[in-house]
């Protein structure tokens, strides 16, 4: 678990480094992240949990939220998700956050 956390933090740092250099793209695959977000997150958010889209939060808020995913109420549902998938989801949420260059539209 600790190793996983280190890898994820590393991926996050890579993402953030990439974001600071590029205009819109993080380290993960944002497109895949969008697909995974729809599959893994929206089954609750928008139905039984609060409505959620990347544009619900700022990039800093997404970053803070993903610093410790174990504290999220969704953590239980996320146990089976590989780190790569989580990073892709993070990249999507981060790159289309409300203060991003292209905030997400609902879809």
């Amino acid at each position, binding site marked *: 678990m600790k190793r996983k956390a280190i890898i994820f933090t590393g991926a996050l740092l890579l993402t953030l480094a990439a974001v600071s250099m*590029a*205009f819109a793209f993080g380290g993960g695959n944002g497109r*895949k992240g969008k697909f995974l977000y729809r599959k893994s997150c929206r089954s609750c958010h928008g139905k039984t949990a609060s409505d959620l889209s990347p544009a619900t939060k*700022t990039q800093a808020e997404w970053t803070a939220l993903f610093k410790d995913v174990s504290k999220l109420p969704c953590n239980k549902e996320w146990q089976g998700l590989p780190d790569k998938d989580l990073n892709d989801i993070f990249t999507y949420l981060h790159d289309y956050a409300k203060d991003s*260059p*292209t905030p997400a539209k609902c879809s």
Partner: protein
Amino acid sequence: MASNKGASLSRRDFFKASGLAVGGGLLGGLAPSVAKAAVPDSKWESHFSACDMCFNKCGLVARVRDGVVTKLDPNPKFLKSRGMLCARGNAGIAQLYDPDRLKHPLIRVGDRGEGKWQRIPWDEALDMAARKMQEIRKKYTPCGHLFSAGADLQTQFVTRFAEVYGSYNITSHESLCLLSGTRGFLDTFGEVPFADVLNSRYVIMAGANRFEALVTPDSMDLMTAMKDGCKLVVLDPRFTKTAALAHEWHPIRPGTDMIFMLALMHIIIGEKLFDPEWIAEKTSGIEKLTEHVRQYTPQAAADQCGIPREDIVRIARELAEAAPRSMVYPGRRTSDYENSTQIRRSFALVNALLGNWDRPGGLLAARQVGLKGVPYDPPWYDENPDDRVDAHKVPGMFEHEGSFVITRDAVLKGEPYPIKGWFVYKTNPLVNAPNRKKSIEMAKAMEFMTVVDITMSDTAWMADLVLPAPSYLERQDPCSGLQGSVACACVVKRDPVVEPLYKTRPVFDILKSIADRLELGEHFDFSMDEYRDQQLRGLPDAMDALDRDGVYYNPSKVYGIYDGRIYKTTSHKIELYNKRYEQMGQDPMPVYTPPSSVPENHFRLVIGRNAYLTHGSTCNNAMLHELVPENELWLHPSAATKQGIDTGDTVLVSSAVGQGEIKVRVTEKIREDTVYMLTGFGPLSKGLSLIQDSGASIADILEDRFDTISGNASMHETIVSVTRKVPA
């Protein structure tokens, strides 16, 4: 087809309405709260709808007798349009009953663009469309198919279909219109504002033409505001109707608006004409902006833009004096120059200094409408390439809009990957996109091209398969959320006011049918009524209001939306200095570079609108055609004399990429170094009977440059020669 739950008027309703009309008060120039207007006798039916003759979606009441739409009236309860329906709105009848409408599915049987078609049954047409889409997907990956859709209530189904089919390559019309303005304001304020012209005391309108290129309610509200003392200053190389009604018209040298704005900032900052507390609290980068604009003196601006120095100084002072109830109007179409995002950033920055954000008479944030999205879950396709075909060419492209000009270049090169299928709905790049030769080549590069439209547009003319859609008066649409500046945040819906005249199908039905054939039917497993229920799930009273009044209003907050909230920018403040631009290698504050010079006996071609036409979609409309039978080239008398040209002469307008023949109108309403023409004439299609051989097409003449940040087309960068055509 669903039944219309719209308004049927009884005589009693009419009398009640009349009573209200006498007793009611006025609101912003609007007739009082009259739900239903007069009808002559009980044989008439009246149905609410929303106009589709341009993008504004004004509320209307269709008067129907014996199944025939006889008149379209404005919906007096529709605040966004202030109870108005314009010439184009009235001419919606001529669109419905246009003999040139597409009536059956057509398959190309001659060469592409040759105009030889064969009528085929719907099932055969849909089978073919599905089969070709499947072939292209297998051969080139799903991203090998492009989808292009214009502004329409059913466009969301094209996007939905493209995503579930698996293509990232979706282009809207907006990269031929407004995206650089959107980018400039978004990157300053964190969202794209609405202009509260109704409550403004001073409006600078640079390059916008609101009394002809109508935006509701801005066009009407500006008139009302001017009656109440608002001053209007227009900068335009052309003496438009807006210029004619303004307090001041300055025929600015095209492409120099930015230095005018920078000089306004020079004065406002230099003379400390801003509210220092507001700027300190709400904005980021005032010190850097102060330093940056020092170089842009009024004299430097005057030398570039041709507006006298003393006028620039006076206008800056007057604008600041009226602040925060003053503005530089953001404008809509901004597809003009290669630095148009930065030009619009300069507009946005003047507004920021005026402290007018989120305040009466200034720029307004988006209000809550309450309409919900309808989520869907497209599959993932591992075989797809990493990104859109137009990715990585400009740093600030909008993922959900794309760039048509960059996409077209990619298609022609076949790089970074081939695109061989094209589905087009209600957009007409063969008319609206610069450099038509390339658009024709793009169509020819396709293995299969499907166009859904109501008439044989120039783009349909290049297709393999043309599918006829119903007009807006014959179909059921999703609900749409609209903000009418300060007037309202509202929802409209559209139901058929008459039965469809022909065997047409809405694009929703077409895509649903194709999805079924591609085993993607689960993503279109709903009716339009069910879809609308989903959209309205947060607004339990909305459907009743829509049935009763033709519109639902959300009484959401208008001003002070940002009180206690952060701005959606990197710094979480209004960004005078944009750090993200700095990181991208772009100018963090707008840096003026002069436009290309116009050689002697040459002209800069500018384009624009009048109030009678929505580009190519209305030129062939019988009612509007009476008003504007063809386009003309505006040419200044001194330039005309030099060239020996008179009004009515036919000239050849030539650029580096193409040419067109057009009649000249010699007029002092244009600068000597500039010419102007309307969009939408000079068609390729032989299916538009009224405008055959009428005028020239901008698409033939304009060069295909684009804004280097947003990828929006740059349609004022073309220099042309004008030569008199000697009669044979």
